[in-house]
């Protein structure tokens, strides 16, 4: 199970990458949608491209091939679990 530190790191990375300027909720539920209208971060599919590249550069894990981006970017938890499982 991913730890809180990784969640915080990811939120900071996403905020920085996607230039989020709106005020964020104090706590972001790892189970909430990452992309789409229900996203607490207000991310859309163009942001998803930026996140995929940022995650690859930062953690050295490629989201692609038969690992569907849709599945990995479903929630903060699924993204964190994917990073934990795949980084060297």
């Amino acid at each position, binding site marked *: 199970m991913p730890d809180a530190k990784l969640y915080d790191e990811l939120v900071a990375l996403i905020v920085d990458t996607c230039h989020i300027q709106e005020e964020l909720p104090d706590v972001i539920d790892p189970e909430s949608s990452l992309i789409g209208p229900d996203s607490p971060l207000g991310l859309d599919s163009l942001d998803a*491209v930026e996140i995929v590249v940022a995650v690859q550069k930062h953690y050295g894990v490629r989201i692609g091939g038969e690992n569907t981006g849709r599945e990995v970017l479903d929630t903060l938890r699924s993204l964190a679990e994917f990073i934990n499982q795949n980084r060297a």
Partner: protein
Amino acid sequence: MSEWLAPNSFQHRQYAHCESGAVAGLLNHAGLPLSEALVFGLGGGLFFGYVPFVKLNGFPLMTYRCYPGGIFKRVTHSLRCPVVQKRYRHPQQAMAELDRLLEQGHVVGLQTSVFWLPYIPAALRFHFNAHNLLVIGKEGSRYRISDPVVSDLTWCEEEDLCRARFARGALAPKGRCYYLQGPPQVTDLRPALVHGMQVVCRDMLAPIPVGGIRGMRFMACAMEQWEQRYGVRKARYCLAQLIRMQEEIGTGGGGFRFIYAAFLQEAAVQLHCEKLEALSDRLTAIGDAWREFALSAARCCKGRDETVTYHSLGQQVLDCANQEDALFRELRETTRTLKHQLKGL
């Protein structure tokens, strides 16, 4: 009833792309377990096309894969798999035929419109008429669906499925259904692997201006004019559409380049060919370059990076085209050698 026809034994799994996933599902059920990447490669799925005089949802047709139905057709042909494919004029006839096939124990593939499938989240539905799914059973008025891009088996009401099968517009499915009549006759995959690679090399290096490497160069030049031709707003929509076709609609990222690289890697093992492994690594790097292009394009759409221009985006596409040109020429040479080796066995 043969065991391979029993839908109760059907094992659902999620795939990146609908058509290669549906074909992999059918073949796995028929007793030939193949990965999605192998199916995609055997079906010669990789391509690039930019056809500005054909519009899809109001945008120039841009594609990173072969025509819808092409993967199913090529894979089943290569593996000598007896299949039936049908289109219908009347929805009632199509649904009655589907019921009859399910009663006979077939797993049936359908071409549908994503927009009319209620189990797909509303945010992900759009007007795309070439979505593939498998129907494995029926209970009352509901069909049991194995949708390759959905994580679990799901249900769909008859009325909704009928609407999705007969949606109108570009690539209208016209009730298209397909199923296997028997298991594949080919057990040695090696000749089919080489043939699949040859198909992709032929298409990518074809001397037509809108397809393959030449299609990429054509688009790279054309996109420098998008702002003048379409205006700032619509040019950004065009870019967003291009990103969607490359990174979203089940491509596995990098416009199917990562999936094809995985195919080359599997083919390298089966054909004992180190050269294919090296080409796989290079194609993965090219996929990363396409992704860098998508990143720049996304920033351009969002107005986040003023250094990105349509000219610089065109240059990135040209760079990808040059790299792919060299790669597919080498792959073509490699397949010729492999073909001679296989003939000599």
